[in-house]
C-alpha cells in the first residue's frame, strides 16, 4: 500500500461517522485487531482488513476509504461485531461506509445491479411464467410475475 498523506485528511469525517448508525462507538476501538483475526475475508485476502479501515476512517481518510474497492469486501457475517471487546458495531459500520460510498458514486457494478433489480422488480430474481411452470410441476404455488408496489414505495427510482 502506498504511503498515507495525512495532510489530506478530513478532520470532520470522524464526526460525520460518529453521528450515524454503525459509527457511534467507533472511537472506542483500541486497535486489538480481534476484528481482522476473526474475519473470513481477511483470512483469504489480506487486502481486506476491518481494523485498517477503522483506523483510516478515524484518521479522516475519507476519500481513500469511500473510493476504495476494499470496503465492499465485507461479507456482513458479523464475526467481528460479535467479538469486538469494545462494542464497536463493525459490520454496521461497514454497511454505513458502503451506503456513503454508493451515494458518492463509488460501488462495484454488481452492487449497483442488485440495487436496481430490487427497486425495479422487487426481487433479485424475478419470477416468470417458466418459473411458475416449474413450480407447479412439483405442486408449488404460482408467484406473481410482476411487482407494482416497488414503484409506489420508491417513486424516485
Amino acid at each position, binding site marked *: 500500500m502506498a504511503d498515507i498523506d495525512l495532510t489530506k485528511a478530513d478532520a470532520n469525517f470522524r464526526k460525520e461517522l460518529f453521528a450515524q448508525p454503525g459509527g457511534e462507538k467507533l472511537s472506542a476501538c483500541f486497535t486489538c485487531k480481534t476484528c481482522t483475526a476473526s474475519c473470513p475475508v481477511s483470512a483469504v485476502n489480506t487486502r481486506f482488513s476491518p481494523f485498517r479501515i477503522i483506523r483510516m476512517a478515524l484518521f479522516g481518510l475519507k476519500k481513500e476509504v469511500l473510493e476504495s474497492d476494499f470496503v465492499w469486501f465485507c461479507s456482513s457475517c458479523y464475526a467481528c461485531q460479535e467479538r469486538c471487546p469494545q462494542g464497536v458495531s463493525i459490520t454496521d459500520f461497514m454497511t454505513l461506509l458502503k451506503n456513503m460510498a454508493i451515494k458518492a458514486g463509488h460501488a462495484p457494478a454488481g452492487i449497483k445491479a442488485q440495487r436496481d433489480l430490487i427497486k425495479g422488480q422487487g426481487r433479485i430474481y424475478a419470477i416468470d411464467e417458466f418459473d411458475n411452470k416449474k413450480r407447479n410441476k412439483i405442486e*408449488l404455488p404460482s408467484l406473481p410475475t410482476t411487482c407494482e408496489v416497488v414503484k409506489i414505495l420508491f417513486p424516485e427510482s
Partner: protein
Amino acid sequence: MKYALFLGCTIPARSRQYELSARKVAQKLGIELVNVGEFVCCGFPGKASDMKSAMILGAYNIALAEKQGLDLCALCSSCTSALTEVVHHLAHDDQAKAEVNEALSKAGLRYDKGVRVRHFARVLYEEVGKEEIRKHFTKTLEGLRIANHYGCHYLKPSEIYENFDQVEDPHTLDEMVALTGATVVDYANKKRCCGGPLLAVDEKTSLAIAKEKLDDIREAGANAINLICPFCSVMYDSNQKGIETAFSATYNLPVLYLTQLLGLAMGFDRKDLGLNMNVVKTKDALAKYSCGE
C-alpha cells in the same frame, strides 16, 4: 402453529427443493404455512446500497403479515436477519417508524407493532421440539456423517435473536441432525461464513472462502453438508464444481437442506424432498437411506 411463509428471492427461483422439502416437513409436523403472494425482497441485498430503502422493504413485508395477523417464518437466514432487524430497530426508534409508515401509507399499509420473525429451523427447535420431531421419524440415518454449516445470519447479529442459540458454540442444528441417527461431524472453522455475499463483488475471494470450509469438511470425513440457507447452498452446492475447477480440488460432497435430511428420516421419498434437484448428486451418498427415483 401458523405462520406466513416468507420465501424471499433465491428460494422460489433457485432452491425449490428447499421450499418443497420444508413444506412437506411442516405439513407432517402440523405447522401451517400461509402463502402471501405480495411479499417482495426482504431488503437484505439492498442494505449495502441504502439502509433506509432496505428497511422500507422489510417493513412492507412485515406490515403485510401484520395486516393478516400472522407471524413470519423464513427459510433463508439472510431474510430472517433482515426482517428481524427491522422489527428490533423499529421497536426502539419512533422516528424511523414514522418514516417507514410514510412510505408504506402510499401502498395502503401501516407498520404498527410488527410481528414475530422466525427462521424455520428455529421454529422446529423451539416450538415443535425435538421429542415431537422424533415421533415422526420412520427410519434412522445411522452411518451418515453430517457436517453442519450454521452460516451467519441464522445466529447473528445476536442482539436481535434473544440468544436462542450460542453464536460461538452453536448447537441447535447439531441436536436436530443427531435426532435422525446421523453422526454430527465437527470440523475446523465451523462458524465461518460461506462467502456468498461477496459473489457480486469479487468472485475469486468469495469462492476462496467457500473452498476453505469444503477443505475442512472433507478433512473431517463427512459424507454430506447440512445447511439452512439458500445463499450458503449456492456457494457449496451450485458452486462446488466451479470451486473444484478453480482450485484443482475434488470434493464431491452432497449439500442437503435440514428439511431434506429430516424428511428422509420421516420416510419421504427422494422426489418429495427434491433431492433430484440438488446440484451435487445425492443418490450415492444417500442410497442406503432414501427411496424413490
